[in-house]
């Protein structure tokens, strides 16, 4: 029980830090609000869905990036999806990066992407963690 409490506190702290760092925005709070008695695992379901979806999308994006010349339209549509999911879940930073990515796609700037690739991929790591945590949170 105590351990559970500790875990809960940890999760709360983690959640707060994600907010403070700007990884998440109010949309996530809204998402949390949507979870009630009738729908107890809502956040977890959504987040799991998001990760599954994202993983697939990122794989597709990486595939597309390997091609040369780059198919910007395809990339753009992937990024659109990715961005939509992210904004729904409240992943603010990912969304911002996606927007920028799309901007580069639109201008056909392959180099821009190369620059952005690093932070983008890095970004996903804390995300995963957080999401999993928050999922765990929901379980408890």
């Amino acid at each position, binding site marked *: 029980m105590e351990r559970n409490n500790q875990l809960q506190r940890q999760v709360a702290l983690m959640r707060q830090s994600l907010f403070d760092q*700007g990884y998440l*925005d109010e*949309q996530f709070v*809204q*998402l949390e*609000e*949507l*979870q*009630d008695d*009738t*729908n107890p695992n*809502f956040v977890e*379901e*959504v987040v799991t*869905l*998001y990760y599954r*979806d994202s993983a697939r999308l990122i794989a597709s994006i990486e595939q597309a990036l390997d091609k040369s010349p780059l198919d910007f339209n395809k990339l753009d*549509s992937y990024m*659109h*999806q990715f*961005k*939509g*999911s992210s*904004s*729904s*879940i*409240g992943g*603010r930073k990912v*969304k*911002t990066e996606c*927007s920028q990515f799309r901007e580069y796609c639109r201008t056909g700037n392959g180099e821009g992407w190369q620059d952005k690739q690093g932070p983008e991929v890095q970004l996903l790591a804390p995300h995963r963690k957080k999401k999993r945590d928050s999922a765990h949170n929901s379980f408890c």
Partner: protein
Amino acid sequence: MSLFHVIGFGLKAGQLIWMSCWWIVSVISMNWFINGGLMDAKTGLLGGDGKISLNWREKVSGKISKIQHQYDHLFGSKKISNALWRKLLYTWVLCATMFSLWIFLYMSSQAIEKRKETLASMCDERARMLQDQFNVSMNHVQAMSILISTFHHGKSPSAIDQITFARYTNRTAFERPLTSGVAYAVRVLHSERAEFEKQQGRPIRRMDTLEQNPVHKDDFDPEVLEPSPIQEEYAPVIFAQDTISHVISIDLLSGKEDRENVLLARASGKGVLTAPFRLIKTKRLGVILTFAVYKIDLPSNATPDERIQATAGYIGGVFHIQSLVEKLLQQLASKQNIVVNVLDTTNQSHPISMYGSDEADDALEYVSTLNFGDPFRKHEMRCRFKQKPPWPWLAITTAYGFLVIAMLIGHIFYATVNRIAKVEDDYHKMMELKKRAEAADVAKSQFLATVSHEIRTPMNGVLGMLHMLMHTDLDVTQQDYVRTAQASGKALVSLINEVLDQAKIESGKLELEAVQFDLRAILDDVLSLFSGKSQEKGVELAVFISDRVPEKLIGDPGRFRQIITNLMGNSIKFTEKGHIFVTVHLAQEVMDSLDVETESSSKNTLSGFQVAERRLSWAKFKTFSQEEHVRPYPSSTYDPIILIVSVEDTGVGIPFEAQSRVFTPFMQVGPSISRTHGGTGIGLSISKCLVELMNGEIGFVSIPNVGSTFTFTAVFNNGCSNLNEYTSQQMNNQSNSANLEFEGMNAVVVDPRSVRAKVSKYHVQRLGIQVEIVSDLNQVLSSLKSRNPRIDMVLVEEEVWNNDSDLSVLSVDQLRRSDQKVPPKLFRLAKSISSTRSDNVTSDAHSPAVIMKPLRASMVAASLQRTMGNVGNKGNCRNGEVSRLSLQHLLLGRKILIVDDNKVNLKVAAGALKRYGAEVVCAESGKEAISLLTPPHSFYACFMDIQMPGMDGFEATKTIRDMEKSVNRKIKLGEVSAEAHGNVLNWHVPILAMTADVIHATHEQCMKCGMDGYVSKPFEAEQLYREVSRFS
């Protein structure tokens, strides 16, 4: 006689003039002539002429417009007609001139003729008289010859001597008015001369010398005359009248004239006249008439020789022509100034003047012949007027008058034509200007619409970008800036929307829809819109809707809301303290209570502030002056329902000088107003237009520093017994579900102010709670004990609570300790956040639950629920909670389709909508959505993502709309029964676009594809509510 003639001619000429006038008039306007002109012409010609000219002028001026109208029809182009008119005018002038000339000539010739006739008749008259008198004298002389032959030659001795003859002739002189004397000469042959001279005692004297040496009349002595030389025969005068006694014994045959005379007379046996000659004694001009006296009675066919043989003597009469004619003329008409000449024209080449002079200078002469009974001599009388003929003034004036009239008519005609041309020119100019103005107006509207539209598109970009910017890494200051920029942008967009509305209304493109709606819900929404502001300001906001207003109305809820929002927005903008009170009544109801409702004039208003008299604001409405609207309540199902809505505030009011232009677009009270309060001043003008579209009227009354009251009427249809039972049933279910839990409860409202209490009562009653109003807490306490039906809740007005906190505390205790099983709950009705907060601090323990004003049924219900603990809702009264509640109210039990290819989005959206109680169905592609939305279906609304692989949202929407259209058409045509399609006559599922991309998904594009609105992802409760509520 001549005067009559002239008048007759004048009339004739006048008639001619009028006829020509009518002719011209008829040319100008056939139509007019047929209608009335002919009649007038007839009466005019028969009646006086002054009247016609008046009529004529009136007609002409009156019909000028008509003429002008016909003018175009009659003559194609302006130029042709102008030339035609000009020609006509010249012809007219020419004709008139010639005609007047003709009149002049005709009339003067007539006058001359007349003169001639007059002269001839006068001359003839004189000649006849002269002749008659002469003949009388001649006859008498002849008679005298018979006398002498009878008494001198027939008797022996002679019965006549000189004395007898003289006396006789003197006494019978009156018988011979023209003779100055008669004498008798006897025929004496030379053989008888001596005897004759002896017998007479005087020699026969000759006349020649006398003629050669004329002597003076007075000392004329016949004795000096020489004796006649020896002749074959002699004719000495033996008898003579006294006047010519000097001729006695003078031999007539010795005078040349006399001799011829005598010889001629005795040969012919008739009277013979001499040529005029100077008489012997008087030397005056005279003629001598000679008759022969025969010894025997000769037969009429006797030969001259026989006559000469039978001649006994000669009787002669001296005619003193000059004096005689004078006497005659004087006797006749001395007034007539005519000159008479009497001439002997026996010798044609040398007529001998017997009387008269040539003094007359008039060329006109008339000659009449005189017959003095002497066949050998011819006489004639020549008459002239003494004066020259006078100027023919009548002819001149008539002709001139006619000319003047004709010229005047011509001038009038000319002026008319000119004026017509001018008017026509002006008309064309005006038309041109009008066209230009209209074009300018259209251009303005177009410009406005285009510009507004064009501004909106980039504005959406700006707003979208701002929205995105807000979600990037910003510090507090930056966020503040962005928020301000976004707020300004939103304000600008709403302004542009208003301008577009205005343009639409002006071009008449705005059409109202007729759908069923719940007036109370709409007012609740509007109220919630303003609740934040009113709470901030501490202004009390209240809505009261009369019970008699039907639950459901048919009309345009969106526009109705717009009006109310406009009016309330204005009110809240200008009100700092007091209240804003919206009342909705039936017009019928207001009319009935016009006399009763006098209390409102006192201080009994919602907040206690004085207000502008509400009734004055509708004083000018036509609805109330028309009696036909008075009909007994309840009205039948499809009767129009006239609502009268008043928005009353206690704001700054409108200055009197600005009141007249309140409804003019872009007119604000003053420039300072827009600086302090913002706004464009277009809202009221739009409201007025909208109200007029709803067949209503809008009016207001405002007293500066007291407040304003705007009132409008709107006509709706009663929607209570609508065919669309499906929807209404659903509505009822849904509204009931919220209210059922309070059904049958009892409440007490503590409020000393009746108007406010009424409002509170109205809202609480809507939840199905029985309400009683008392004026203070003591009454509540007393009634608690006595009353039989238990009291579930007590609603205390904040004012009452604060005023008497001791009593309040006491009453709380009392209530808690009341012997009922469930003690009545105590509520405080608070109007502003600030007051609530302060109270929270001071009296936390005893503080009852607070219900924030403005009161709305849903809000009240939520507050009650929270406090009474019936439902386990999270019990905080945040603003989000409010909209969530209303959204739940809106979406509960509704089936909603969400279409998105992104599963995450789908899940989140579904979760959000489910949260509001909706039944959510998900679809992952446009095609799936189409199959689900094929009628009949039971979806209340559809949220559609726009960017989807395969079929995007626009395309899917288009397909769905096409499907709906075909089904609707089939139902209409009866091909498919309505029952098979769920009893819905007109399929139109609201489709809302769902996109994160605010830039591309512009409103217009959505609308173009048949979508009804759009929400941006991720869902915001507020936005969702706003969009969905539009279709409630």
